[in-house]
C-alpha cells in the first residue's frame, strides 16, 4: 500500500454497515419498446463502498448501470448522486465514470492519450494532466506501455487501461460492467485482486456488475441480487449466501440442495454436509440420513459428492481434500453412505 491509501479499515467497517449515502435510486424503471428491462429498482450506495450487482443474463444489471451513467433516461423514478437528482443531466456532466466490459478504448489513441482523454475534456492543465496520467498508469502497472496503441496490448492490459482511463478523473462513483468478463479464468482471478487493491488505494466508490457469484462474494462489501428487472435481496456476501431471503437468491448465489422435512423446505449448502461411511456416528446434535453415492467428482481443492437419499432427494456435499493426496471417502459409485448435517445450518426457504 502506498501513500495514497487510506488507513487500513478493520474487517468490521469493511462491511459498510453505516456511512453517508452517495447514490440513491428510487423506483427507477426503464422499458425498451414495450419490453421492461428494469421494473422498479431502489438502491442506496454508501461512499467508499464496493457494491456489486449480481444476477443472471437479462436481469437488468447493465440497464441500471446505463441509467446511472446517463446513457439512458429512466421512464420513472429518481437517480440522486450526492443528494442531487441526475435524471436530466447529460453523461458528460455527471461525476461518474464507467469501465466498459469490452473496454471501449479508442483505437487511434495511445494508452496515454486514452487515459488523458477525460482530463483534456475537462481542460486540466497540461502539466497536471501529464502527472495524473503517469500516476494512473503506475497504479495499474502500465507505466511502460504509455506509448502503445490498444491493439498492441493483451486483454488484461487493455482492461487496466480502461480502469486507468476512468479513475484518473477521480470520479465520485465508478461503474464497472463485467469488466473481467472477457478474460481467462487465471487472468480474471489476478485482476480481481488488483481491482480490489486499487479500490482500496484510491477510495473511490465502486459499482460493479457481474454474473459470477464467486467474484461477487470475494470482492464486494455489499451485493444486490437482480432478477427480472428487480432486486431480490441486498446484503453483505455472508448475508446473501448464508441467509438468502428468496429461493432465487438461494439458488443463484452458490449451489445448494433442497430437503423437505416436516412439510418445510430447507436449503443445505454443500459445505455444510458431511459424507461418512455407513455405521459411523454423526456428531452430537447433528442429523444423519443414509443414501447411495451417485457421483464423486475430484475438484482439486475439494471433492464433490452427490448422494441420493431414500426418498429421492439429491444431496450435494463438498469436502476439502485436506488430509492427504486422495479424498477421504474411498467409496465407489452406487455404494451406501451416510450424510450428516447440523440442523442449524439448514436454512428454511
Amino acid at each position: 500500500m502506498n501513500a495514497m491509501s487510506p488507513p487500513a479499515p478493520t474487517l468490521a467497517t469493511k462491511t459498510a454497515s453505516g456511512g453517508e449515502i452517495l447514490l440513491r435510486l428510487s423506483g427507477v424503471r426503464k422499458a425498451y419498446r414495450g419490453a421492461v428491462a428494469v421494473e422498479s429498482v431502489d438502491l442506496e450506495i454508501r461512499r467508499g463502498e464496493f457494491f456489486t450487482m449480481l444476477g443472471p443474463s437479462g436481469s437488468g444489471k447493465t440497464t441500471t448501470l446505463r441509467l446511472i451513467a446517463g446513457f439512458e433516461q429512466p421512464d420513472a423514478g429518481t437517480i440522486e448522486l450526492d443528494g442531487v437528482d441526475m435524471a436530466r443531466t447529460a453523461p458528460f456532466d455527471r461525476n461518474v465514470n464507467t469501465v466498459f466490459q469490452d473496454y471501449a478504448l479508442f483505437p487511434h489513441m495511445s494508452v496515454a492519450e486514452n487515459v488523458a482523454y477525460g482530463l483534456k475534456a475537462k481542460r486540466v492543465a497540461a502539466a497536471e494532466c501529464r502527472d495524473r496520467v503517469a500516476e494512473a498508469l503506475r497504479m495499474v502497472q502500465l507505466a511502460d506501455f504509455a506509448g502503445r496503441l490498444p491493439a498492441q496490448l493483451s486483454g488484461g492490459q487493455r482492461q487496466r487501461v480502461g480502469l486507468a482511463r476512468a479513475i484518473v478523473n477521480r470520479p465520485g462513483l465508478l461503474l464497472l460492467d463485467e469488466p473481467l468478463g472477457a478474460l481467462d479464468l487465471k487472468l480474471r482471478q489476478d485482476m480481481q485482486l488488483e481491482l480490489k487493491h486499487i479500490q482500496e488505494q484510491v477510495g473511490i466508490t465502486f459499482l460493479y456488475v457481474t454474473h459470477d457469484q464467486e467474484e461477487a462474494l470475494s470482492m464486494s462489501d455489499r451485493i444486490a441480487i437482480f432478477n427480472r428487472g428487480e432486486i431480490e435481496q441486498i446484503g453483505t456476501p455472508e448475508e446473501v449466501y448464508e441467509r438468502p431471503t428468496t429461493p432465487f437468491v438461494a439458488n443463484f448465489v452458490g449451489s445448494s440442495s433442497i430437503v423437505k422435512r416436516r412439510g418445510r423446505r430447507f436449503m443445505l449448502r454443500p459445505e455444510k454436509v458431511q459424507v461418512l461411511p455407513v455405521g459411523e456416528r454423526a456428531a452430537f446434535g447433528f442429523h444423519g440420513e443414509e443414501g447411495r453415492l451417485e457421483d464423486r467428482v475430484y475438484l482439486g481443492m475439494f471433492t464433490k459428492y452427490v448422494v441420493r437419499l431414500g426418498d429421492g432427494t439429491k444431496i450435494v456435499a463438498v469436502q476439502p481434500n485436506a488430509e492427504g493426496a486422495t479424498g477421504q471417502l474411498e467409496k465407489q459409485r452406487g455404494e451406501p453412505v451416510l450424510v450428516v448435517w447440523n440442523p442449524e445450518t439448514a436454512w428454511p426457504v
Partner: protein
Amino acid sequence: MSSAHETLRRGGVPRRFSGLLWRNPRLGLGSLLAPPLAWFILIYLAALVVLFVAAFWSVDPFTGELDRTWTLDNFRAILTSDTYRAIALRTVAMAAAVTVTDAVLAFPFAYYMARVAGPKLRVALFALVLLPLWSSYLARVYAWRLILSHDGVLNWALKLVGLPQVDIGYSRWAMWIVFTYIWLPFMIMPLYAALERIPGNFFEASGDLGARGWRTTAKIVFPLALPGLIAGSIFTFSLTLGDYITPVLVGGPGSDFIGNVVYANVGIANNVPFAAAYATLPLLVMAIYLLVARRLGAFDMM
C-alpha cells in the same frame, strides 16, 4: 472403425478434387487467383504499359501515323507550356475543392444514417443515395445547365422570392456545383460504412469521460471515419480529375481540364502519344494518392 474410413474415403470427382486442393493449397490459390490476375495483368496493366510507352512516341499530324522513335518532346512541350501547367493546376484544385465540399456535405448525412436514423429509414436513405446512379449521369449534368443558365430554374426561383439574379451558368462555379453534386453519393457510401463501424460505446465512453458532442466528433468520430472519408475521396477526387464531359457541358471559357486536353488529343487530334504524356500526371497523382490511402486503411471502406 476402419470400415468407416472406407466409406468416408469414397466419393466422386468433386470430393477427390477437394482433397487434392486441401493437400495442395497452392493449387487452390492458383485456380482462384489466376483468372482475375490474368485479366488485370494481360488486359489492364498491359494496356497501361502500352499507353505509357506511347508517351515517348510521336505522331504525324497530317496522316496520323505513329512514329515509334523514342522522344521526350511530348513531355518537353507539356512542361514548358504555361497553358498545360495552368490546366493541370486547375484540374487538381477543382478535384480537391469538390472532394472537400462533398466531404462536408456527406459527413452529417452519413452520420445521420449511421447514428440517428432507425433501421427502416437507414435502408431508405441508402437506396435514395444510390438511386441517382441509375439516372443518367449525362442527363443530370445537363439538368444543371437548365438550372443554372441565365433564364434557368435558379434565377426564376430567385426572382420569385425577390432575390437578385446570379450569373453562374457556364463558369467554374457551375462546374464546382455540378461535380460536387454528381459524385456526392460516392462520398456518402464509404463514409457511412466507416461511421457505421464505430462501436456505439465509443460515443458513450467519450461522453462518460466528460467530452461534449463536438469534442467527441473531433477527437473520436472524425479520426475513426477518416478511412471512409479517404475512400470516398478516392472516388470524388479521381472522378473529377478524369472527367472531361462536365467541363464541356457546364464550363465556361478557361475551364478545360486535363481530361479535355487528353480527350482532344486522343479522341480528336489522334495524337495518342501527347495525350498519354499528359495523362501521366493524373496517373502519378492518383498512384500516390492510392498508396497513401491504402496505408490509412481506406481500401477496407470502399
